[in-house]
């Protein structure tokens, strides 16, 4: 079977493209990192790709508001090409800054603003899957890390009602294994309705603040040494993969 091709954006301060590529390739895809200017200049076309990934990072340093400047660059230069991409039966994901960018382009609903603490925060969260999406098949819960200053999801009442009705809330923050372990509150940033990710186009586009690519290995879990010690006493083997890899595998198997 041919591996589905993934285009991962880079440039202007995006910075999670390499580990996102590793995740896609471990999941069985072929991924290319492409600088946005190569698309602007027409050197690379989106047509050859099945999956579009907008990775995390700090595009334009979050200046003028996170994701805003990079989103304008997309809208100013290849809005139609993006639209054509998603008119076909293809998948997209925006992670963290990528999520902020995709909301600013209008591809995903709502917006992301400053955390309630008004400070950049790095920790792990538990999410519960609420929506219906090719990205989320077979996933009920996951432990994933967040790292953001502007991750509080907001949307007006109408949008929220629409999201609920259409199963377009991808995940909500809950108190699960890792929050219990580290005794942390469920919602890290004050997101409305505890929303950690949303969906669009029948679940084909996923935007999420947590980073699944930073949870693709078991040794990325904060309590893996504890889990390892327990496993070793119960004579169990420790796994290699972390909970985040499943999302990338789901995207790949969508094209099988």
């Amino acid at each position, binding site marked *: 079977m041919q591996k589905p091709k993934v285009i991962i954006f880079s440039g202007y301060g995006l*910075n999670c493209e390499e*580990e996102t590529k590793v995740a896609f390739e471990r999941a069985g895809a072929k991924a290319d990192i492409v600088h946005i200017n190569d698309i602007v200049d027409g050197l690379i076309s989106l047509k050859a790709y099945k999956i579009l990934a907008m990775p995390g990072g700090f595009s334009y340093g979050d200046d*003028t*508001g996170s994701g*805003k400047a990079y989103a304008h660059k997309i809208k100013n230069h290849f809005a139609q090409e993006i639209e054509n991409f998603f008119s076909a039966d293809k998948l997209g994901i925006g992670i963290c800054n990528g999520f902020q960018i995709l909301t600013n382009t209008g591809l995903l609903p709502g917006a992301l603003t400053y955390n309630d603490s008004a400070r*950049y925060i*790095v920790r792990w969260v538990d999410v519960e899957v609420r929506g219906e999406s090719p990205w989320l098949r077979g996933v009920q819960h996951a432990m994933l890390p967040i790292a953001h200053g502007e991750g509080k999801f907001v949307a007006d009442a109408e949008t929220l009602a629409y999201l609920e009705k259409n199963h377009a809330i991808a995940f909500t923050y809950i108190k699960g294994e890792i929050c219990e372990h580290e005794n942390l509150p469920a919602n890290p940033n004050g997101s409305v309705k505890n929303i950690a990710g949303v969906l669009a186009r029948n679940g084909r586009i996923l935007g999420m603040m947590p980073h699944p690519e*930073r949870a*693709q290995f078991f040794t*990325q879990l904060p309590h893996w040494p504890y889990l390892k010690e327990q496993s070793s006493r119960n004579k169990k083997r420790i796994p290699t993969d972390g909970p985040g890899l499943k999302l990338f595998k789901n995207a790949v198997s969508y094209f099988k």
Partner: protein
Amino acid sequence: MSFRIDVQSVVADTRAAAKKRYCESLGFKGKIRDVAVVDSYVIDAPFNERQITRTAKLLTNSILESYSVDQTVYPKEFDSVKLSGDSYGTRWIIEIGPRPGVTDNIGATAREVIEDGIRRKFKTGEGVYCSQVFFVSGKLSRADADYIAGGLHNPLIQRALIKNGKEFERDGGMGVTIPKVQLRSRGSARKIDIDVDDAELFAIGKYGILNKDGTRRGPLALDLEAMKAIRDYFRGQKRMPTDIEIESLAQTWSEHCKHTIFANSLDEIQGGLFKNYIRAATEEIRKRRGKRDICVSVFTDNSGAIIFDDEYLITHKVETHNSPSALDPFGGAITGIVGVNRDTLGFGLGAKPVINVYGFCFANPNDMAELYRDKECTQKILSPRRVMDGVVEGVNAGGNCSGIPTPQGFVFFDPRYRAKPGVFVGTVGLIPRKSHSGSRGISRKLYEKRARSGDYIVIAGNRVGLDGIHGATFSSVALDAGSPAMAVQIGDPITQKKLSDVLVKEARDKGLYSSITDNGAGGISCSIAEMAKESGGCKVALDKVPLKYPGLAPWEIWISESQERMTLAVPKEKLKELVTLFRRRGVEATIVGEFTDSGRCVVEHDGKKIMDISMDFLHEGWVRRDMMSSVAHIRRSEPPKESSGAFNATILEMLARPNIASFAHISSQYDHEVQGGSVIKPFAGRGRVNVDATVTRPRLDSKQAVVLSQGLYPTYSEINAYDMAACAIDTAVRTAVVGGADPDRIAILDNFCWCDSHNPVRLAQLKDAVHACYDYAVAYGTPFISGKDSMFNDFKGFDAEGKPVSISVPPTLLISAIGIVSDSTKCITSDFKISGDAIYILGETNDEIGGTEYAVMQSERIGKDCMGNSVPRVDAKKNGKLYRAMARALARGFVASAVSVGRGGFAVALMKSAMGGMLGADIDLRNVPGNHTRDDLALFSESQGRIVVSVDPKKCKEFEALMRGNACMRIGTVAHDGVVHIKGWDGARAVRINIKSALEAYRGTFKNY
């Protein structure tokens, strides 16, 4: 033709809530009614209506924000109480923006967004300037508003405009301020007569070249001997020097660049401390190791490099940025971290930054005493709290924005860092040993470089402004009223990220340049002159250097330390490809000259030769001097003995001390997960206790990892600087081993932050410390691979009454260790894992209490120095053997948890493991090996070489067998009840502490930061 756009939030603005809390913390608790924040942009360009509306929309996310054009209005949510009569006076509007010429990142991004969005390039002189407007209401006088504004900005780099509600409404808002740099042209290079008397020669060296208006240009940090050497050189050349020549020599000869204190002979040590001790240690280790040598590139390049695996090298460099951080903590710290990233990019042909580290030495943030730079008390130095907040935020912005994980760090507090903080920042890099295919299908070594005669000199990255003039020379002297404000800079991490990406992800592997180095201290005057050593000369056309704004004098362009720039040597045939590639990545690259083999450093401006100095004089003409040291011994009182009844309270007090307490408020705001390689994070266990070593995989396709740790004991220095350095090395090495390092694959770095280094007593301490560096590096087989020093961390100023005050930092040595972990799945953390596990202590506990945290605490309690005399001594032979046994135990999976015993001693280490696991422990001090004689000394002695571990009872036998021949005793058991019990010498219970109250103490200190 300019207009203003104000963007306000239409959803609850959490930034405003945070600013309100901050304003209250300035002494206005209960007096502040409301705070709102508005982002403003002034666009200085003749736009039409349509363009203005489009611009406003580009800067607004309609779900979150709304905008207004040319009139600042009260934000909708602000201060909804009904106003009457004189309550107008209680609304204050404070606008804060960068001063002219200060880096304005948001303005620069806004400009790019506007240019792209309305398809119109800004013309010369046009621009976008950003500011923030704070609306504050409450019972506040104008003086209060001034004070709040003072807390919201740093006048060295920012401007503030303050209006009350009445003025604001009368004026229809804040008006338009355009902070454009207006320079009268500073003209061309000037000839300077230095055939003058010694007094004038001295004045030039100390205060700078005399301007025509009688003012001086700022410190050159050249003493009379150096000035005489310059005078003699130009006598030989039969001409007067130009200003740029003198400025250039001052940069190249500065302590900052030449490390004269380490290079000069001291007493009997001919050739200096660096050569005879630091470098000698590395050379000896390398020789002894032979084929098993881990070093690849040491001391010569911007970072040091060791072998990671068959394909890759790992590099490390730790910098200090103390002086800039004292003046502007945010700017100093961000330029520090982003600057040391360039030491990675500038290693070999460019290493990829993969891990950042930090270390901060501050005064206690609760210290409110005011200090001034001048006798008239007009130049107040920033409070410790401001310094701490700014530095923490600077590394946050620099590290996070750059996409480099920042897992490893520490904070240390001592009142002697009140005027100059210690700000350490470092970066680990990853670089392939060889390129896969070079220009002609030949692979080349990427860790070597050589500019060739005929290569173009290309500057890439940011443009040059007045920022950072005299940074190198200023950091080489004590801080006083003459310290130049222009030495302050703000970092621009995104400009650098673009530069970094195009270098190490594209241009390097295409073989587009033959050498590269970063622009740090001294700017291009140092980077070009340094690279010119490779080819044998250079010729620079200064007019070609791209400027932020017109009007700079040639010498200013030459020595400006404007950030985010790299200098490259580009072969002529590669130029077009390089410039095109950089342009496509949004990075400016400009040819400014050519490398030559003329033996001279030649600089031209307006077609005229304004500098022409031989390379030899430039680099080697500086004056060596023999230094003398003199030993001073002071006997100190011993800390009083504490009765066992007090231990519970004392341990809780220790856990709450700033040097031991959780600094989660810092580590949880630094992204340690980016790049995906995090293995051991900054926190351990359920209790999220800060760890001493972190582990990161720089290659996601390999189990191998990098472990980082450090050691630092400034409180030992005044008692015994030799033992201080020995302890720093021992702690760093031991902690790396506990973190999983292979003991044969550990390298170390030295950062000396000394004080008053011309003083013979300080030199004696330095000599002792450096001597220990040699002894212990050799004993452990851990080579020094890189280092950096900052030798004049002194402050001469005045207290609030105008009385002279001088403060020097304690002699400070940071040892950073970098080790390779062969299998990162074998790593462990410090938290106890499972109740019933056996607890062991490895190493001996002796009555070594001198200079310890316990002695400092006792001194503070009784209000007089009882720091003691018995600083911990290190037995490297015993310890080295123990560490190897420990590494084998880890590799075989015998150890469930391990913690290196450091500051605060056994009691603190034990509590950290217990708090981490949220489990208790039953301990008997009588089983602890060593010659300790008192319970309090056993608990709080900082004897080195110790590790507290927990072991699965089923593995105890094997573990003990493996540890045979080392000090290793079972001292207790992990308990499920969450209580730590310790039996003392008399067999009675000396300690009973519940983990929950311990965690409260541990987390309480910085809870609200």
